[in-house]
């Protein structure tokens, strides 16, 4: 007993001394030390994988910047001898899409018009659902949540025909708002799941404090919940944007020629059977279709910061 106590006491006495030097020395003991040779092998393997993943992008970029003749002459891997932006210009504004030579521009616009409201509305509604399901619980709320989750698991193909009938009935068939509606219906399941799980960790006492302070349902949502939802909102936006932007099936099924999204137009560009296949234009168009999702990752990823909640409760 006596020895125990003294050991404890001495440990307590040593502790502050150990912690005194900056954290670097403390952490370094946990890093696995490797020899020079092993390190080189590790870097080699990593470099190889980088190359492997970047190769397709390289091919797309270089071939979108060279004249068609250079591609058809072979040498997909080579850098352009004649650097040119004309494939990009063509893909954007003059290429033949289906029956009209409009380029991808109007369809890019369609996609933007579809994806922005769909992402915004599904995120806000998901946040609202999560808020209600965690902070204003009601009888049977777990059932409601379970049914909402179902939306995440139903295969897209299963709803095509009923959805087409629905859109026809409400007069949204073949329109951009119709596509927005379809993506909303599918998106809310996921966004609800995200926000519910996030708000589950959100201290309920904050909501109660706001209630006593006189804030109502929507004020609490707007002034207390939403400002603290940064990280999950970013996750939700990235997820929804990527999914909706890249969707092909709904776009192909529920749009008319003038409401087609980018993905469908890109397909029409590549598949168009008249004339020669302009591979350089196809590559340029494909990059264009991928750019917005890339941009969302780069921009939103920066705000993907955790710890916004620190300090609301005992820390």
């Amino acid at each position, binding site marked *: 007993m006596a020895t125990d106590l003294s050991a404890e006491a001495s440990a307590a006495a040593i502790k502050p001394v150990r912690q005194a030097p900056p954290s670097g020395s403390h952490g370094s003991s946990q890093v696995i030390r490797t020899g020079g040779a092993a390190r080189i092998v590790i870097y080699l393997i990593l470099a190889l994988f980088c190359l492997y993943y970047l190769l397709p992008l390289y091919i797309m970029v270089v071939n979108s910047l060279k004249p068609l003749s250079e591609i058809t002459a072979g040498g997909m891997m080579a850098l352009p001898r004649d650097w040119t932006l004309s494939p990009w210009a063509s893909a954007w504004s003059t290429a033949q899409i289906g029956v009209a030579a409009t380029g991808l521009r109007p369809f890019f616009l369609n996609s933007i018009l579809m994806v922005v409201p769909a992402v915004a509305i599904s995120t806000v509604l998901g946040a609202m659902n999560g808020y209600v399901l965690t902070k204003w619980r009601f009888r049977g709320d777990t059932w409601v949540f379970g049914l909402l989750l179902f939306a995440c698991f139903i295969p897209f193909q299963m709803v095509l025909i009923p959805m087409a009938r629905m859109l026809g009935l409400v007069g949204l068939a073949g329109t951009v708002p119709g596509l927005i509606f379809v993506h909303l219906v599918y998106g809310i399941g996921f966004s609800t799941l995200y926000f519910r799980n996030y708000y589950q960790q959100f201290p309920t006492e*904050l909501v109660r404090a*706001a209630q*006593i*302070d*006189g*804030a109502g349902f929507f004020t609490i949502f707007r002034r207390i919940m939403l400002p603290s939802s940064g990280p999950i909102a970013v996750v939700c936006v990235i997820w929804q944007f990527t999914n909706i932007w890249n969707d092909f099936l709904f776009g192909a099924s529920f749009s008319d020629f003038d409401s087609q999204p980018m993905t469908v137009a890109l397909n029409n560009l590549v598949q168009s059977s008249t004339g020669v296949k302009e591979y350089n234009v196809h590559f340029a168009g494909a990059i264009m279709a991928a750019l917005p999702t890339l941009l969302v990752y780069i921009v939103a990823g920066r705000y993907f910061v955790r710890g*916004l909640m620190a*300090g*609301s409760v*005992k820390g």
Partner: protein
Amino acid sequence: MGFLDINRATKSYGAVKVLHETDISIDEGEFLVLVGPSGCGKSTLLNMIAGLEEITTGDIAIKGRSMNGVRPAERNIAMVFQSYALYPNMNVAQNIAFGLEMHGVPKPERDKAVAQVAELLQINHLLDRKPGQLSGGQRQRVAMGRALVRDPDVFLFDEPLSNLDAKLRVDMRTEIKKLHQKLRTTIVYVTHDQIEALTLSTRIAVMFGGHVQQLGTPKEIYDRPANMFVAGFMGSPSMNLFPATIAVENGRAVAKARKSGGEVTLPFAEGRGFEAQAGREIVLGLRPEAITDRDGADHRSRAVHVIEVPVEITEPAGSDTFVMAHLGGKEVTGRFRADVDVRPGQVFPFAINMEKAVAFDPRTEARIA
């Protein structure tokens, strides 16, 4: 009728009754502490006063106005939460002003009120900070500021000190007491810490199992606990409870209790009315300070009785030495002066102040006298 009236209020979740019929009435400016172990219903009762939980049956009224169906925001109450519940996205000034803003108070008035409260709580220099940048004690002050600024009829405190470390807790306790003396506001305060209850309150409701066991001033609760639960829960170390039998010797009522190798006879103070109950089994209750060394005994008491008992363990605590011995088959603790030379194994004279003795019925656990 008082300032805050709880009339036969109950709370049930389905078939589970968490709060049985409760009647409490306090006057304006009183400091009511609801104290009890976890799950006794004290927080539920506080939330019912706040309007965060609905009342199943009965009624709660503030200033004579029934609060049934009145939303929390319209009850003119303010609450300090255990976790402080500061809004993480707002700075301290915004946190404090939020309630005023929600009640439509114009900005210049809000700023003035915030400045006043910040002055009172000495948090002026923190007004621009976010809650995440504050220490525990500072957050506690901000949480109180948020309640104070509203100038409510009733303040509700839900275990506000339990997240602080021991030293800070004592400081904040004093501060809350000072604040109450200065502002004379009506406070309902929930805690499981009996010392907080005794030091802060003007009245205490001791709760257990969804029942109010006793409602009274700290002195009543401490000196004349209504039953064995209250006796054991309030006070530290808790009250000594050991079985004894009432007898009458030379016309005077005494309590007889077993000790190792014999029996002790403890004459009751006169006029307690035990003479008529000779032969009755009781549980005798004595606070540790009523069991002490000969010189430490209360000189004004007319019923100090000295008995010789073997000492089991001594626990020097600096200001006092706690001495354990066996009486009536139970371990009892006496509070001796620190400089008394008493050792384990010794047979030592214990001075028992029988003026302070209370007796309980062993079956109902209620106090007899």
